[in-house]
């Protein structure tokens, strides 16, 4: 760690709320497990699990997909040289880049029924796979969706498919809370938030139809500020998404919210979506401590007034700003029975808690029973950030982003900071 005057002044102060706020939250959820640190990946996992680094220094590795042959496709973002999709071949505990293609950055990567799907920040492509799950024509993908809104903020497009030939894409709102002036202190909300027409929701398209635009799709769910992690739940046959909750309650409305409140509120929500659902952004946010939908200060809220009639409740509400970037329902047989059909969530880690200590940078497990959350979430894999100081300052070494399941039931985690791919296995 660099020692500059500010850092040395602030860190001792930052540690106090860290002890008060962060630790109890995390410890409470993890008491059921004894932890073993597994070298060399440096992750802390429940007993019996092991993590290996199977690839490193790939670049900004966003989402990833594993083929039935155990090969790996990784989507890269903001790459400067090379290509935007990597094809990695596994060999024991290591992997090698066998191929790379795609001239666009982006986030989405998904395999379904013999096709690889990939997204840029505006478009969605697909590539036909051969019997070995290799892309047949890497330079000529089919462009299935184009012209999705990208106004810098919340620009990434994540994708997932159902079992009926549909693909779901998030279009994040290009705004924090639909203020007249985005992120400006005291600026009020735009009446009838016009962003919601073409962003701040999930759109459904046909997976096999070329060149679809907004008009060809179904505006599947609205009032969702931004989604990066999403997955199709096979048990319920239903779409689940993780919303990134709003930022800066204190910065924008200092008279209504303390710095400490603003660091942990509002919730990062897991939603189970049905067609036509409205999650309420920007008019409300979810308070995970009071378990209530609160009227946003931009729309006349006072930090207590509830609102949001007709909007859905979250299935699970996590602490604020942890940035859920990956969601995966585990359907494999390798992990112990209690993990089956439960949700893994990769939390990229916060930035909007400063000057309070940052948090997240871990993979969480939320148990499910009969398609419903069952019991408390727990930290499953931790240690991506490095030391506690690295975590709390936000200067994390690695940041979990994408999740994928291998044909043998292994869990893969991508890191878009250093480009590391972790493989987590269970040894009986």
């Amino acid at each position, binding site marked *: 760690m660099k020692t500059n*005057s500010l850092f040395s002044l602030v860190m001792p102060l930052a540690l106090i709320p860290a002890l008060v706020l962060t630790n109890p939250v995390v410890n409470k959820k993890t008491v059921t497990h004894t932890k073993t640190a597994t070298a060399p990946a440096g992750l802390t996992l429940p007993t019996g699990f092991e993590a290996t680094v199977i690839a490193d220094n790939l670049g900004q590795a966003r989402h990833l997909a594993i083929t039935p042959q155990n090969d790996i496709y990784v989507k890269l973002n*903001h790459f400067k040289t090379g290509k935007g999709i990597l094809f990695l071949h596994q060999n024991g505990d290591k992997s090698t880049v066998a191929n790379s293609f795609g001239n666009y950055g982006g986030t989405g990567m998904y395999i379904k029924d013999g096709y690889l799907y990939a997204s840029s920040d505006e478009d969605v492509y697909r590539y036909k796979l051969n019997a070995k799950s290799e892309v047949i024509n890497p330079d000529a993908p089919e462009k299935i969706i184009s012209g999705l809104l990208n106004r*810098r903020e919340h620009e990434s497009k994540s994708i997932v498919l159902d079992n009926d030939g549909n693909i779901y894409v998030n279009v994040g709102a290009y705004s924090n809370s639909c203020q007249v002036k985005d992120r400006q202190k005291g600026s009020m909300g735009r009446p009838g938030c016009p962003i919601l027409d073409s962003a701040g929701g999930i759109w459904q398209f046909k997976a096999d139809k070329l060149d679809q635009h907004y008009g060809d799709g179904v505006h599947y769910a609205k009032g969702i500020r931004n989604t990066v992690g999403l997955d199709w739940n096979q048990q319920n046959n239903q779409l689940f998404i993780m919303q990134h909750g709003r930022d800066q309650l204190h910065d924008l409305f200092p008279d209504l919210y303390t710095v400490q409140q603003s660091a942990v509120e509002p919730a990062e929500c897991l939603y189970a979506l049905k067609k036509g659902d409205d999650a309420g952004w920007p008019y409300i946010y979810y308070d995970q401590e009071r378990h209530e939908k609160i009227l946003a200060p931009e729309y006349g809220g006072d930090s207590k007034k509830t609102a949001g009639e007709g909007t859905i409740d979250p299935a699970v509400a996590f602490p604020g700003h942890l940035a859920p970037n990956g969601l995966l329902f585990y359907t494999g047989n390798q992990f112990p029975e209690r993990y089956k059909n439960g949700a893994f969530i990769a939390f990229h880690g916060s930035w909007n808690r*400063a*000057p309070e200590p940052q948090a997240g940078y871990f993979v969480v497990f939320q148990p499910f029973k009969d398609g419903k959350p069952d019991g408390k979430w727990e930290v499953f894999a931790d240690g991506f950030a490095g030391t506690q100081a690295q975590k709390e300052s*936000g200067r994390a070494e690695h940041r979990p982003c994408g999740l994928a399941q291998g044909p043998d039931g292994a869990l893969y985690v991508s890191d878009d900071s250093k480009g590391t791919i972790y493989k987590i296995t269970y040894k009986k």
Partner: protein
Amino acid sequence: MSTKRTAIFLSLIIMLFSLGSYAQTKHKSSTHISLATSIANGKNIYIQNCASCHQTDGGGAGNMNPPLIKTTYVLGNKTTLIKIILNGFSDNVEINGQTYQNTMASHDFLKDQEIADVLTYVRNSFTNKASAVTASQVKTVRANNKPAK
């Protein structure tokens, strides 16, 4: 260098600077604020208005918010820098070789002296070293300021 020695070293520098600026300006105006005071006041303004995005160590946050460490904007032209605070910034430019996705709002609600202080703080923190920004410079830029969009 140990934390303590860095702190002592920095406070010495700040003292020297403030003595220097005091010597230069003592017969100009009695309202002139020393560099050390400006930096100290600027730090408070920074924590309240900037740290949630640019972080307390000035290092920024991922692909969202850029660092304020030796960037061409922080160390460069003061008019451009003052305008970033007055008008906000979302031009999708490369900042030391990387682009950032978040939106910085206008901070024109800050007073001239507050903007001068926060920029002076930024330009003399996080390993940056650059001349102070004064309230009169902010005043001039504000008077001629045409909002970008």
